[in-house]
């Protein structure tokens, strides 16, 4: 099949419905949120490959290649499961394969059975679900190259605007994998507050209530929903370029923004997307990319509005960057690994670790309760050491020149 760029992404989203239902049911039955993590990784890997690799490299995609890509995606999924210290993650190896194969088969059946049967125009439209009926008459979306450029621009904008938000509390050290992004502890704590029982009337609280009812980790579900919503926003921005779907884009953008603790920043990002992408929505002149990229060409009040919006977004963006005291700390892998290790092996109510150096890491650990992993009944306080001493001592955890020892 020959996918358009947008068609590839839309098809991926549609084909993820089956795996979501299956892995969700599995997670419910086993009361194990790991399967939700697995779905999140499966979805994100698929979307990332579609947007970042397949959409640019693959033209015609024969059926045999679809099988091959399924194998590749599983290998990447397995690698990601092992490489990332996911909270509460227990699925690996054969269990992962056992869960992945039916999930992937459902996605495959969606593409090769359900969609061709239920939506015959789907294949003709390059995997897109274009409007039908009266809307189809006027439909003339942007060209393939325009779509690709728009998507790359959207994704780049998302990354650039989200980065300072992510690193703003970088000194805290601990990072939490959220699918697309790594969150810092303060943000993770904010999300935890939003999703707990006292979260009030908010989407985050609703998600938390849903997760608690299902027996999942509320944060896990939140992390799953956020990147999905973020991608939905990107796709909706694309759809808006075809005209007539601005309302949908705005609605989905609002959903994504409401889900985030730093809503003002994502709202700014959404406005920048809107401003930058505006020219695609009504440009009739093919081949004049520079003109499409420029908001200057937009007519009347919308052009006047676009520049202040863009300026405001840039100010907010700069302000977010200004909040980062030491961007280099974001790259301190040792601290992050130490924190991840502690999270993984520290049950509730354990004795808090106390140590003296280095202050930054201790602050990151923040009195986190810790016990030895192999003796769950016996609380053991751990001591942090740095420097050459680590190499000669029997450490519970060791990374570069940082190690944790029994006191």
């Amino acid at each position: 099949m020959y996918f358009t760029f947008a068609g590839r992404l839309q098809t991926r989203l549609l084909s993820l419905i089956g795996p979501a239902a299956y892995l969700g049911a599995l997670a419910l039955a086993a009361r194990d949120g790991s399967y939700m993590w697995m779905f999140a990784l499966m979805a994100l890997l698929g979307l990332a490959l579609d947007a970042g690799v397949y959409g640019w490299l693959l033209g015609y995609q024969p059926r045999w290649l679809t099988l091959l890509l399924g194998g590749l995606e599983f290998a990447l999924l397995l690698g990601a499961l092992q490489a990332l210290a996911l909270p509460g993650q227990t699925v690996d190896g054969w269990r992962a394969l056992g869960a992945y194969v039916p999930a992937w088969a459902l996605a495959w059946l969606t593409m090769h059975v359900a969609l061709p049967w239920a939506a015959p125009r789907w294949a003709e439209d390059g995997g897109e679900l274009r409007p039908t009926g009266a809307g189809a008459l006027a439909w003339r979306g942007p060209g393939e190259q325009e779509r690709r450029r728009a998507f790359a621009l959207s994704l780049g904008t998302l990354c650039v605007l989200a980065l300072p938000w992510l690193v703003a509390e970088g000194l805290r050290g601990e990072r939490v994998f959220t699918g697309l992004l790594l969150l810092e502890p303060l943000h993770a704590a904010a999300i935890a507050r939003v999703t707990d029982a006292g979260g009030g009337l908010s989407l985050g609280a609703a998600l938390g209530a849903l997760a608690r009812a299902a027996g999942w980790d509320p944060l896990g579900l939140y992390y799953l929903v956020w990147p999905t919503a973020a991608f939905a926003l990107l796709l909706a921005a694309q759809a808006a370029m075809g005209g007539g779907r601005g309302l949908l884009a705005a609605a989905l953008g609002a959903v994504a923004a409401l889900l985030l603790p730093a809503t003002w920043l994502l709202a700014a990002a959404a406005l920048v997307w809107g401003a930058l992408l505006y020219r695609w929505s009504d440009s009739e002149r093919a081949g004049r990319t520079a003109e499409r990229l420029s908001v200057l060409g937009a007519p009347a009040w919308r052009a006047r509005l676009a520049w202040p919006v863009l300026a405001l977004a840039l100010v907010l963006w700069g302000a977010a960057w200004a909040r980062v005291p030491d961007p280099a700390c974001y790259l301190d892998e040792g601290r992050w690994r130490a924190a991840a290790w502690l999270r993984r092996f520290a049950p509730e109510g354990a004795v808090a670790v106390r140590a003296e150096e280095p202050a930054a890491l201790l602050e990151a650990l923040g009195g986190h309760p810790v016990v030895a992993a192999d003796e769950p009944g016996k609380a053991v306080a751990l001591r942090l050491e740095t420097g050459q001493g680590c190499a000669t001592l029997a450490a519970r955890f060791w990374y570069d020149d940082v190690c944790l020892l029994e006191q």
Partner: protein
Amino acid sequence: MLRASHTAIIGDGPAALATLAVLRHRGVTDEITVYGDSPHPLARLERYARSVRQDTMRSEGDGHLSPAGFPDLALVDTLRRRSPLPALASLFNLYTPPLDLLLEHAAQVAERYSFARCHVHARVGRVARPAGDPRWFELFDEQGAPLGRARNVVLALGHPGLRWPAAAGSWRFHPRVSHAYQRPTFAAGERIAVVGGGMGAAHVWLAALAAGASVVALHRSSLKRQQLNAPRRMFSAVGLDEYRRLDPEARLSRLRAGSGSYALRPGWEWRLWQARRDGRFITRQATVERIEEAGRHERHGRPLRLHLAGGDTLAVDRVVFATGFRTDVREHPLVRRLVEEERVPCVGGVLQVNDDFTVPPLSRPGSVLAAVGVLARWALPVADTFFGMKYAARRIPIDC
């Protein structure tokens, strides 16, 4: 009492069947009438295919006449033969549906959507709107007698007929000169000139070689091997969106640039390679300018002599013109009247239909004149394929 229909389909070939099936699938439950000569929509296709000894289709498993894309013919064939081979071949784009399976499938589709019940044996010669009533079209036969009226009319006429190059002239009635689709015959030891380089020509080469004849393949442009009869991207929005952005001149030149091609099949290549090695298959890029009977002193040799551009001559026993079909849609009397009387735009023999397949000056909201199949090539270059027929039928703005 004149027959009143929700939609009248003019034509009785695969385009008419595909349109009927798709419209029913879209939810049109009101009366649909199919005007044409034959209640068997694939009869002509079968006759042509049998003429060139074609036993499998060029299309792949999903190129069929069902309105939905699933199940495709590869799966149907797999279940029918209880063999995984068709499905496996389909996985690698190597499946081509057998002609018999396609005919059986078409018969099933025709039965399911009551093609025969919708069919009216009549040839429509004129379509016009009654004065002062934009909600209907009136249909007349070739003698001008009224046939019926319909809210929507879909022109599903096929190719206007076989294409003969100018060199054929009156030779087309000679017993040793024939068109590929007139079931030419071959005998062992004969030398056959096959003019053309498309799918029909390839089938004739193979049939002649199988009969023990030798073949001289004369082709105007370079021989092109292509899995489908157009680049794959033209069967998807990727290519079609690009095409629809072209201005009219570019569209026309794109349509004219499409030359014949034949499918790349390993079995064919092997047989042609063997024949070439044995000196029984020769290809020449040349056009035929004139045909004449060989002189009396040459009668013991080949009875026909072809004069090629550039001055060469070629002595052969038979000439087969595998030059496909005529494409100037004005050769249909009905279309010619539409162009001349209703000012339907037509350039270079191609009807300039809108991208939603409606015919510009006669269509109104709620009552459209549309074109599918060959007549819709302006909006869709592959409109004359099964894919194109269904693609067009799905997009015609007909209220269900």
